[in-house]
């Protein structure tokens, strides 16, 4: 579904969705959300873990 090529002749960027800038922006936002989500999850875990030690 995401292929950006129909032939290997004269190919340059050939990765999935290379011809769909909107999709690439959305994937970038998704990647950023994963990193932010990881840090947020760790912070929540710490808040809970440290609660009784304050």
């Amino acid at each position: 579904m995401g292929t950006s090529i129909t032939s290997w002749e004269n190919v340059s960027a050939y990765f999935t969705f290379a011809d769909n800038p909107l999709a690439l922006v959305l994937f970038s936002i998704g990647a950023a959300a994963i990193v932010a989500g990881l840090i947020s999850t760790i912070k929540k875990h710490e808040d809970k873990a440290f609660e009784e030690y304050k």
Partner: protein
Amino acid sequence: MSTETPTLESLQAALDAQQAVFEMHQSMNVEVFYWWCTAIMVMIHAGFLAYEMGASRSKNALAAGIKNVLALAVIIPTFYLFGWWIYNAFPGGLIPAEASAALPWAQSMGPDVQDMGTGIFWAAFALFGATTGSILSGAVIERIRVSAFLILTVVLGSAVWILAGAWGWHPDGWLLTELGYHDVGASGVVHAVAGFFTLGVLMNLGARKGKFINGIAQAIPPHNLPMTLIGLMMIIFGFFGFLGGCIIFNGGETGWTTIYNTPTNLSAFAFNTLMGFAGGVIGCYIASRDPFWTMSGGLCGIISVAAGLDLYDPGLAFIIATTMGFIAVKAAQTLEKAGIDDAVGAVTVHGFVGFVAVILVGVFAGGTPNVDGNPEISLYGQTVSALVMAVVGFLPGYLISYALKKADMLRVPDKAEDIGIDEVEILAKPYPETDVPAKTSLETQGA
């Protein structure tokens, strides 16, 4: 056998075909070189992992380790998302230039048959960034919250150091074009920046509980000193990938150049990397007689000559490294007396030594010409650049950690620090069998 008489056109076509094959193989060689440099750099992180876990007390060993592993995991994607763009957009200062090809949604930021350079250079730079994160990681063990550390490591590894890299390593970087900056092995752009960032964080984070009693520094021994020594040696191994990644493998007739486009070769790097390592070990050993510092001396020595790795006489590199190794131990003791608890000496080994290393290029190699119309290397240019590196590192480290401290997000609670972060947060024990009394040989025989 063909009896056709070759024509000028057929000979030209054969020559063109040979040339195309040659150029493709040359591009592949470039990729192969940086691929293995990047792979070898992963050993730096394996080394930091062992070294930091060993340097912690056993109650915090896994917290130190998980922090280090996660640093790699967050720096790689964030360096993809904005680190590479910062390098390409900010060589002129703080106003971004057009660098849309380095944005994460650009076609050049993915598999491309025609582009055999971007991915492999991005990878090497991402691992440089991860190294800065690991430099911070060791200093803050045993009391920083993992979430706070990850925020700080993303800022350092994917933004701060690469901004300094844009200024001091990019062909259009203003430190090069205005001051003739020379730092081929990243003493400034990686080590000094990361070391001073770490100092800023440590000032807000504070010392480990029990480190200072009535203002007097107390020793907090590593729970596994042998593991720290092995870890440090693994970092030294990884440095060969790091420093290999700092040299430019050019196609055509040019061959090797420094990142400043001046001629050099791996032989030059080999002489001074090894002489620097040896000198640093000796200097730290003489100053401390301590196994941890003796092995750290290898790092001190390499970092102390890395900025001028292509220029120094190996004998001079050895003397510089020995001297800097000796001074580094004294500098670490001074820092400790000032109330800074740097658990692994990162501020001194990376920050102080990297800072001085940049200046020393001006002292010993001042007057060396640059190319492409850039000014020659000078003591003035190197000194100003070293100060820039220190400020660029220190300010964000101090300010962001200050904000985290004010939000009560920087440090684990006192009681959790007493019990150990592994038990409270990580919910795992590094050595679970240590709670079980050992059986005597008579018991195991059923007596």
